[in-house]
Structure formats: structure tokens, C-alpha cells
């Protein structure tokens, strides 16, 4: 098991006041190595909150998150950053590539928190991934010069550059047309299998969800 969430509670607002809203309530989740799961649910059900908690971008009010058997909920900010950098890969609904950088620079960016300069191995790995997603030729172009699908594929490469154990994808096909969405779903599936990476996708798309090993529905703060 790569990830375990135990009795997670998360709410927003002041618990003493009326504006408090409980989003996640006694939530439990287990993800195995190489497992692909989808989390579905209506808007406002807490899907993204859950993904942020797993991605350590946010902290639960209570409960415990363990990654490969290590509790990460008590990590310091520095440890969390290091954890995110090495163990997790993020793909967002919008690609969130940095416009000032070329594709090549964008994908190698996550190397820098741990190394002063991207080494030969990382560059070969980046080349391998870029060739695999079919944008090797465009590597010196900037995001503004690429299509939405190409940018999202770049984001996938960026998520994989540090060979993470778990990829978190928040509506990865949400901003793409049907054709590109299909291609990206295929790509995620393929890469996850080939690279042996676990995948948690938050999505509205039933088509994408259906390609996952398991689909959870988040409702009233609980996963079912």
C-alpha cells in the first residue's frame, strides 16, 4: 500500500460559528502501488480538498495520512516540499505551465529543488518522456505557442520528471476537447502502467473514471 488516509476530518470556517462547513468527515482511503483510482462527485463535494490534502498542499483538521507507511501529516513545510517534489506528481485542470519558460525548461523545473542543475539522467528521462508524449520537436517552444492538448501533455511529463510514486490529477481533461481528452486519458493510463505509478484522478468524466481500477464517489464528506 502506497497511501493511506485514516479518519480525515476537514472543514472551512470557524467551528464556533455558523459559517463553518465540514467538507470531509471521517474519511478513509487506501491506495495500492500501481493502482489507479478515480474520485468522482458533484461540485463542492470536496474532491479537490481531498486531492490537496493528499498532495500536502493543505493539512487535515484531524486524521492521519501515511505514505509508504510513513506518517506525513506531521511533516514540516520543508519536508512536505521535499516529499511533494520526489514522491508526487501534479496535473491540474489548466496546465499551469510557466509562460516564460520553454517546454524543455518547464518539464525540467521540478529537478531544481533538489539539484542545482538538471543532470544528464534527468535530461535523458525528459527526452524519453517528451518523445513518448509526442512533443519532443516542440521542446524549445513556449506554452503560448502550443495547443491546449500539447500543454497538458507537457504537464504530464513535468509531473513524471522526478519519477514519483503517485500522480494526482485534478480534472486533467476538464479543459480539453473530446479528442484531446481521450488522448490524455489514454496517455495517463499507459504511463501509469508503464512507469508503475499510482494514479489518483479527480474527475467529472465518467469516461475517464471508467478507465481506472477503482472509482470512488465523494458524498457528504465520505468516500463510497
Amino acid at each position, binding site marked *: 500500500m502506497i497511501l493511506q488516509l485514516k479518519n480525515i476530518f476537514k472543514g472551512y470556517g470557524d467551528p464556533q460559528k455558523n459559517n463553518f462547513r465540514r467538507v470531509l468527515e471521517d474519511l478513509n482511503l487506501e491506495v495500492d502501488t500501481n493502482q489507479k483510482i478515480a474520485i468522482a462527485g458533484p461540485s463542492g463535494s470536496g474532491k*479537490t*480538498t481531498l486531492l*490537496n490534502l493528499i*498532495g500536502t*498542499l*493543505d493539512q487535515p483538521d484531524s486524521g492521519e495520512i501515511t505514505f509508504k507507511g510513513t506518517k506525513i501529516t506531521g511533516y514540516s*513545510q*520543508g519536508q512536505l*516540499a*521535499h*516529499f*511533494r*517534489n*520526489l514522491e*508526487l506528481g*501534479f496535473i*491540474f*485542470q489548466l496546465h*499551469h505551465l*510557466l*509562460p*516564460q*519558460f*520553454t517546454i*524543455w*525548461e518547464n518539464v*525540467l*523545473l*521540478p*529537478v*531544481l*529543488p*533538489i539539484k*542545482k*542543475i*538538471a543532470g544528464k539522467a534527468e*535530461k535523458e528521462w525528459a527526452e524519453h518522456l517528451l518523445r513518448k508524449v509526442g512533443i519532443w520537436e516542440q521542446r*524549445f517552444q*513556449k506554452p*503560448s*505557442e502550443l495547443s491546449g492538448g500539447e500543454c497538458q501533455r507537457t504537464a504530464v511529463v*513535468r509531473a513524471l520528471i*522526478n519519477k514519483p510514486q503517485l500522480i494526482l490529477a*485534478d480534472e486533467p481533461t476538464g479543459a480539453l476537447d473530446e479528442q484531446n481528452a481521450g488522448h490524455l486519458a489514454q496517455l495517463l493510463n499507459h504511463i501509469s502502467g508503464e512507469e508503475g505509478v499510482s494514479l489518483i484522478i479527480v474527475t467529472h468524466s465518467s469516461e475517464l473514471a471508467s478507465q481506472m481500477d477503482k472509482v470512488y464517489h465523494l458524498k457528504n464528506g465520505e468516500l463510497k
Partner: protein
Amino acid sequence: MTRLNLIFNNFTYYIKANILTALGVAISTAVLTGGLIIGDSVTYSLEQSVSFRLGKITHIVTTVDRYFRSELAQELAAKGAFEVAPALILEGMAVTEGGGERVNKVQFIAIDNQFDKISKSKIFNDLNDNEVIISLNLAERLHLKQGDNFVARIKKGSLMPMNAPFVSDAETSVSFRALVKEIAHSQNMALFNLKNAQTPPYNLFLSLSRLNSLMKFKNKANRLLISAPALNNKQITNLLDSCITPEDAGLKVKELSELKETEIKSERIFIDNQIIEAFKPFGQTHPVLTYFANSMEYEGKSTPYSFISTIDDNSLDDKSIIINDWVSADLAVEVGDSLLVKYYEIGPLRQLVEKGTKFMIQKIVPIAGRYGDSDLMPSLPGMSDAGHCRDWEAGVPIKLGSIRPKDEAYWNKFKGTPKAFISLKKARQIWGNRFGTYTAIRISENIFTEKKYKALFTSSIKSLNLGILVTSVRKDGLNAARNGVDFSQLFLGLSFFLLVAALILTALLFLLNLDNRKSELGTLLMLGFTRNQIRRLFLSEGALIALIGGLFGLGLALIYTKLIFLALNTLWWSAVRTSVLMIDIKVTTLLTGLITTVCLTVMTILYLLSRSFKRQAMELQQNHDHEPKPFITWTKKWGMVIAISVSIGLAAFQLTGADKLNPSLFFISGGLMLLGLILLADYVLRQNRRMIINEISFDSISKRNRSQNLGRSLTVIILFALSTFLVLSTGANSEGLQTDVNEKGSGTGGFKYFAETSVPVLFSLNDNARLKNEGITSRFTAAQFSRIDGDDASCLNLNRASNPAILGADPSFFVDRFSFDTKCPEIGLKEVWKAMDEPLNRVIPAIADQTVIQWGLGKNIGDTLIYRNELGDTLRLKLIAGLSPSVFQGYVLISNNNFLKNFPTSSGSSLFLIDAPKESQKTTMEELKSVFRDYGWEMTTAGERLNEFNSVANTYLSIFLALGVLGLILGTIGLAVVLARTLLERTSEIAILLALGFTRRQVFRSLVWEYAVLLIWGVLIGFLSAVVAILPNLISSGSKASFYTVLLIITIILCNGIIWISLLSWGGIRKRSSIINQFA
């Protein structure tokens, strides 16, 4: 809902942002309008100071070292029906009892009751005996109050030129115990000054009769103060000419009944040729020249000290002499014997050369009749009235040992009756001098009438011939005030960077506001507004902001002006040297400031709007990397190459090829370097934008980030480059001004001391025998200067000078001393001093400080200054060279020879440069100060004198520095705005980086480095350019252009920038702590 409503609602909704932008506009308005108000106020203050120093005076009648009857005032007033007051103005000093406090250069103004009519004050009436009224500044300096006593010492006025032959120099000053009757304030003529200068002199008013009695004069004056607004110079001169009498020329008539002749003599001893010419119509006039000979010698025998005169005797040739029988007996000579006559020839500063001429005795005559005429001896105070030969004060050394009892007996019996006679022609040849050619005119009694005498004088002699000039002092003063230093331009120049920084800040704030309202733009477009309509909407809003900011800025301008004036009246007093600065606010100035700033702001906003719209259009076209047009890129590239090359070339040429380093050229080089390096920064940033990076690193992502928003990065670079350049170059210049004062090529000429006296010294300070007599034993060399007063053309005077004081100098003293900034092309650099004595066609070569020529006089090399010389002729001084800043600032130098030709009766020196060996400098200073104490000797090191002038330049630099620092603060605020805005835009980028595993510290370091590099670039560009600009200061030997000052300034700029960057970056990252919001 109307458009106006829309604008107003927008304005109120975004009130905070709009207030910030309006503040930027307010600062621009304050700086611009403040500068204009300062200019107006300084001009107004100078105009007011004309009223303060002149009262109701519109014209003055002046003379140089001459005196006329004080009654001339009444006669002129009666003829012209205007107010005229006589005045006798002399220079002196005031010393408190006990000698504790001493003030030199006090203006003693002797007046009578007519003065109150032109002074607008009654306090000057009925000054008795030793009662004086002193100006407030003098009272404060000497800590005097009403009823106190002090010692007043005045330069001894003399009716005869003090340097004329046989005039005693024993008494050069007189003193009296003055009683303070009143202390005058600015409202009652405390600032009385006939010169165009805003610096008030120390004034002492006393009664005309008292000063006349102190000078042993009878009803004399040397100034007429006239209040005749309706008349011009010519009209007053015409009236004056009709009033002038022979007495005003110092002429006196005496009837010689025994000889049946009338004698005309002059109080000035020698009579000008033009006076002789004036009386020629009498028919039979006999000019006489009587001289004092040291001895008449024959074969070892000598008759000492005799007067020898001329006689009309056609048989007497140039080689012959007639002696009286007393001499014949004394020397045992006979007709036909050869007699050697020895006499002194008197040069400048009483330098005596004994000369001898041999004559053959043609006749021996008894002491009777024409040959026994004691009136032939000129009236010489100190001699004429001496009871014994031993009591003579002859103005030349008298060997008392050579005077025998029989000489005393002759003096007792015959007084100054000449013992010998030579021809007039020969006498003129050997004894004629610059003071005149004759000592008397004899006219036959039967043809002389008083009426004809006066009529001939009036018809031939004009006031100008006597060196009496009418000057429209008020008109000239107002012109000088209006054309003086333009403080508007000066302050706008000095605060230019502040103005630019304020405008950039306004632009940045407006742009920030605009960016925050991008979505509003989209909505309006969607709602069917055309781009022009939206542009007009935003422009109207911008104009409203500009107007409100501008109006607020006018209020700020008043505060700014008050603060600057407060500083000018205290901290920066050196720049204005007056405490009478008054603020003058003109509606037109306020409107000019307001309209200019609002227009500038609206134009900036218009530019920003069109740029913003263009950018939006490009964003829509997904074309982020919009490149400028090839022509612009090409121009920038070649502009960069040319600017840097020319800058290096100019500096290299100056360092290797030029005779002398020209600071202006270096400043131009620095400016070009600044431009070139900024263009280089632009080029590098553009290249970074296009570069292909294989090796990704923190450094490479920083590069990319810096080039992402080129405009903002360049704004940061330009702001800091400019501020560093300006602050460094001014700061370093300020230090550098005090360098090299011991070098011969410096502004001191290598002279150690600079001295001035209130009473002229009549002899040469290089005459060791004379110095020994005075009790001075130390050895030194002194350059002495004759001086004719004029306008102060130094930077201490804000008025436009037209006729600066003239100094007569001996050019041979200055060869290889001082340096020249400019010169006439036909003169070699090393020949400039020599050229002062070279004859030019009807003009006299003159030299002045280049700063005086350029700023004080508004002239160029080769231009001519027009004066009147002592004889009333036009004197044209051609400026042949401009000195580098020197101790001569404020003066125009001509050669001594030319000076004496034009001002022959000007007496002595009152300005000195002294060079002494290092070991005796202290003794020299002490001895001179002690011996010349009563001359009002003021001595400083020449370096201090130079620094006094430099203090003005330094003050300007301080103002520039202070305003530059204000600009730097605004620049820093600009940087903060750029940073805040950029960080706001980069919120999602920061969140992404954090999500990708970057720690906050890494993101913080990356951001700080990114902006720190821009800051360092800016500072480095400014530094390098400033180094080029101040290279002359840096490489001059002994330069105090302090490395530490430069280092300190750079450190402050860098630290200030880094602190801002760090605070804002950290705040930016902390604020985005909930990065999840970015992805939710």
C-alpha cells in the same frame, strides 16, 4: 446613467488606487511648480533687495578716487527739480573697544539731512559728531547696541592721488570713537549698497561734516544719490555738466599780484593736459611743472633736495639750466659748468628709481621776481606746511643727514622757491607722469577773469573728463536681478530626476490600476463599447485623477517651496547668501505648473492605454513574444554601439591626447556610457528571452524571468542606474572640488595666502628694505593687484553682473600658474599671461574665470566688456581666456600697464596673493596680520578662498544630491510598486513552484536573486557611467574623491533596494500560503 456618472463611479469605486496615482501626480506637480515658484521668488527677492539697498535712489553720480563739492547736490537738485543727496563713501573697519571683535570692509557712508528724502527714513537726520547709525548685521557681528561705543577706522581719503610723487603715505587711515545712535534694519537702509549684489555689506552711517573733518576735507563728497525716476542718464549728465565748476576738478585760483599773474593749481598736484587745453583760449597761458630733485651735483659737491621748475624762456634749450645765485654759491659753479640733477622717477606702488640728467648752466639769477617765486612749489601736504626740512613728509626717502644748516636757512627764508629752472619741454620729458604733466598754469592778470575762467572750464570740461559718471543704478539693479541666476531652470534641472521618478511612479501606479481592471475592459468590449470609447473613458478618469492630484500638488508645491526656502535660508545659505528671500506666488506660475503636469500625466496615460490595448490585442492573438519592429531593434543596437564607443573614445582622447582634462567632456562621456549600457541591458534581456537553454538551473530560470517582462525589468534598471549615476557623480564632485590647492596649476596658482585690505597698501610688499622698516623680517613673494570696484561677478552674487571689478596684475608673476578652461585660438596655452600685455586694436586683453565669463557675465571668449576709464573714455576689455575656477572669481584681470594707463591715479593695492616657503609660512602670516592690522588686513589661505567659491558649487551639488536622494526614494517606491504588481501577477507561478516541491525559501531566494540582479545591473551601470563622468576627479593627484564615499553611497542604494525586494518577496510568498486557492 451618464458617461460622467460612469467616470465618477469608477473613480470612487477604485478610490484607493486612484488616490495613490493622484499622489504620484501631486509629487510631479509639487516638484515642477515648486521649481517655478522658487525661480519667481528668487527673482522677486532680488528685485525687492534693489529697493532695500537703494531706497528711492534711481541714479548715482560716482567717481574713482576723486572728490567734488557736496554743494553740487543742491545745485543739481535745483536745476533738475528732483531729490539729490551728497554722500562721501569710504571703506574702513570697525573694532570693539578692547579690540576683541573686528569687522573689516565696513562701508562708511557719510550723509547729510538730504539723505532722508531718498532713504524713506527719518533716522538719519541730525547725526552729530561721532554719532553713527550701524546696520543690524554689523551690530550683530560686534555685539553692539544703541548707546555703545566702538572704534571706527577709515581709509584716509586724499584729494591727491595717494601714489602721486611726493605725496606722503604716512597716514593711510584715521580713526574715531563712534557712538551707536541707532541700529538700522532693512526697512531703513541697513542694506544700503550701490553695487548689484544681494549680500548686504556692513554699513555705518555718519554725518558728512564729521567725515569731512576727519579727512581734513571741506565740504567734499564722492557720490551723489539721486531720485529722479523720470530722467535718464543722459539728461542727468547734461544737468550735471552744467553744474560742474573748476572746484570739482580740484582747481584753485590764486592771484600773484607781484608778478601780475593768476595761478591755477590743482588739489591733485598734477594737472591733466585737457585742463591746460581748456584754458588755452585765454591766449597767454603758461603751464608750469615743478619737481622735487634729490640733488644738484657738481664735481663732488651737492645741493640736496631742491625744487626745480620750468620757465618760459625761449633761449633755454633742453640741455640748459638756470640756477639761482644761492646754488651757484653753494656748488661754486659758473655759467657753462655741467650740473647733474638727480631725481626720483616713481613707478607703480611707489617703486623709486633714481635718475640723473646733466644740464649746462646757462644763467645764474638772483632769488627775486620770477626767480624768487615760492608759489611755484606745488602744494604738498607734509612739505608745504613743514617748519623745517627735517619735518618733511615727502613720500620719498629723505636722507636727513645730508640736509645742512644752510639748507634749513634757505627753507626758512625762501620755502620751496625753486633753485633752478629748465625748459618746459625737457621737464615734461623727464618728470611728466601718469598723474599729469603740469603743476600749475599761470595766466596774465589782465586777461584773466573769473567769469571767463568758469565759462571756459564748463564749455570744455565735462563730468566724464573728470571721471564723474552717472549710472542708472536702480534700472541696472532691476535688470541684474531679472537676468541673474535663473533659479527656475536651476531647480527644475536639479530636481529633474525627482520629476522623472515621480512621473514613472505615476505611470506605474496607473498601469497597476489598469491591469487590475483588465476584466472590466473585456466586459465593456462585450457590452458593445468601442475601443476608442473605452480609451476615452479611462483617459477621462485618468484626467480626473491628474487634475485632483495636480490641485493637491499645488498645495504640496507651497510646502516644497517653503522647505526649500527654509533650507536656502539656513542649510544652503551659501547658494544665495541673503536672508531676504521671499516667496512670490504668481497665479500664472501655478497654472503653468498645473497644466504642464496634468498634460504630461494625460499624455503618459494615453501612451499607457494605447500600449495596454495593443498588448491585449496581441494576447488575443496568442502572440506573447511580440518583437519590436526591426528598425527599432537596429536603431537600439547601433545606438548602443555608438554610445559606448563614443564614450570610451572621448574619455581615451581626454586621457591621452588633450592638454587638460575637461570635466564637461567626461560628464558627456559618462552620460553616453549610461545610455549605451542601458541599451546593452535591453539587448541582453532580449537575447535572454530568445536563448535556448539546455542546462536548466536557478540561474537560467532567473534569466528567463527577468527577460519575461522586459519593460518592468528595464524600469528597475533605469531607475537605479539613473539614481546611482546622479547621486555618485554629484557626491564625488562635491568632494573633488577641494583638491590640489598647492599645485601651481590649481585655482590658487600655488599661492599659499590670499589677502585683502580695506585700506590700500601703497608700497610693494616685495620691497625688502621697506618691509624691514615696517618690522617684517620673513621672506615671501607677493603678487599685488590694483583694483577698480565693480559688480561682484562671482558665484556669490545671484544678480547678473555687467561690469565686474577690474584687477591690475603683473602677468610675469603668473607664468606657469593657474589653468585655463578656454582661450582665444590665436593664443598658445602657455602664452596667455604674456598676451595680457600685447597690444590689441583699441581693446585691452582681459582674463576672468570661465565660470564668471559664462554664468556671471553671460559672455564668451572673444567678447568685449565696456567700461569707462578714469579719463572718461570708453574702455573695451576683450576676454582672451577663461581661467579654471580660481581665487580670481568675480574679477576681470588686465595687465598692470594697461590698468595704470586707464586708471592712472588709482592708488595702491588692496588684494594680494602671497607665496612663502613652507617653514616660514606661519611667521609670514603672523607678521603681515600684525603689521597691516590697521589696513583691515584679512588673510586666509588661498585654498580656503577657493573653497568659499566652491562652497556655492558644493551647495548646488548638495541640493542636487538631496533632490536626487528624494528621487531615489521615489525610485524605490517605484521598484516596490513594480515588485508588488509582479508578485501579484505571479501568484499562480509561486503556487505552482510550491506544488512542484520548491520550498518557500527556495522560491524566496529565487525571487530576491531575480530582482537583486536587476538592481545590481542598475547600480553597476550607474556606477560605471559615474566613474567615467568623474574620472578627472578620481585621477587627479591628491584627489579626495573618496573611495569610501562612493562605496557608502553604493552600499546604501543596494541595501535599500535589497531590503525592499526581500520584504516584498517574502510578503508575497507568505500571502500566498493558501496556495490551494489557486487550484481550487
